[in-house]
């Protein structure tokens, strides 16, 4: 989780990702930052995030992103 928070802060500095629960609706994660994020996650966690994982529900909060990574690891 800490690794993920570090990545999130690189992509969008200045946001407290432990608190935000509506990253998409609030516009914190826009289309480009989601793509940057996915690229970094794939590299750092060595998982394959496929386009099928790219749905808004997976990006609502740090927790949901983390769940998506864990599912991809299985």
């Amino acid at each position, binding site marked *: 989780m800490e690794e993920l928070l570090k990545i999130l802060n*690189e992509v969008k500095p*200045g946001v407290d990702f432990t608190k935000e629960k509506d990253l998409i609706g609030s516009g914190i994660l826009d289309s480009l930052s989601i*793509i940057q994020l996915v690229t970094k996650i794939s590299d750092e966690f060595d998982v394959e995030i496929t386009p*099928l994982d*790219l749905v808004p529900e997976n990006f609502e909060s740090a927790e949901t992103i983390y769940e998506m990574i864990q599912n991809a690891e299985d």
Partner: protein
Amino acid sequence: MKSITEFLEQTANTFPDKTAFRDDQTALTYRELVQRAKSIGSALLSSQKRKTAVAIYLNKTPMCAAAMMGVAYSGNFYVVVDPKMPLERIRNIFSVVQPFAVIAEEQLLPQLGELTDGLETFVCEQAARTEIDDAGLLAVHHAMTDTDPLYCLFTSGSTGVPKGTVVSHRNVISYTDWVISTFSIDDKTVFGSQTPFYFSMSVTDFFSTIRTGAEMVILPKSYFSFPIRLIEMMNRYQVNTIYWVPSALCIVANLRLFKYARPEYLQKVLFAGEVMPVRQLNYWREAFPDLLYANLFGPTETTDICTYYVVNRTFTDGESLPIGNACDNCDVLVVDEDGKECAPGEEGELYVRGSFVAMGYYRNPEKTAEVFVQNPLQSAYPETVYRTGDIVRYNEAGELIYCGRKDFQIKRMGYRIELGEIENGAAAVEGVLMNACIYDPANDKIVMIYEGKAAPDEVLSGVKKRVPDYMVPNQVLKIGSMPYNGNGKIDRVWLKTHYTELEAK
């Protein structure tokens, strides 16, 4: 024909019930588009203003297209400002262009706050129901010429004051003549539109649509992060032509999207705005070898484009795509520092001449005089050409190759960014003494380095209030004191090569 609205009406007479613009929620046929545009134009007539700016504060919707054409009907020119732009930038734009009116969605108007003071405000939905004043609109049309301004489009300026390029009906008509004939745009064309209406690339698909009876499908920005939906929408409306920034094409390639979903109707893939990486282009070409791919190149000041290259051979990773040759009815010159024509293969600055060259910058004679200049290669008669500031050279095949920007300006995600404007934003933050912004192209990162007692997150939030999202630095670094070079200027070259050491501290 001398005006874009004449072309629109001609199309509407031929294809009244064909869809002109649609997004994921609404659509307008050509008949509806003309009706709404004439109504909005009629609402604006009461002001008696002509050739004056009208701000459009709407999301990218079919109704926004009607508002743009409505302003044209009224004999004025539009400036599209995005509801997501920071207020500070809108304030800067308004201070340059001095609109007499703003057209907005009702629920968006309060966001503008005191910026609407002294302006006439029109709620778009209401203005679009105004009774059409045919005689009034006709009188406007009689009085106009094709050199009247159609819109003013803002790029970022190095002094922090944005520059507004004024583009005339004639510019757009000449430019779209080339687009339509070169890429065979017609009433069978369905564009999948990616670029915002305040960005010069949108001029290409927007006005080619209006002139030919094509259809423009506005793809929601968010779909570029949820690409399965993007492809579903493209297939639902049978999108066959796209003109996107390379970043958008790269999203698709980097995700290996075509394993999961394929755009079934696509025929033409055009791109511009930044350098298209060959690796990602090759992904597209392997998946869809029979499509037309073209690399377009040009600035806002030449309406959108001045040179183009239709991809006709194989490129290997790391090779750069040519920007090709001049468009029809447009000419380019490669000029050295002494104002002489470069020899073939020699690097020089790209100059553009012809009817695509815009009128100049609004209320900015100094900047206009710097770059809209007499053709340096002939002095026999007055001829204004545009200096792009881009460094180019011809390769052995006689195609132009882009080498870089002459100054510090960078291009990122298709937007032209002057780092100076970001620096200006940071300089305005309390506790910032000196600052410099650098761009690291290898990592596609804008890095802000500053000296002062403010904390990095304070600097970042201060900058965010002053510049659009795409200009916000990816990294903010505090430095004990700025390095300076021999001229006493901040040593940007050093910063660029050493900023990672600052990071480590």
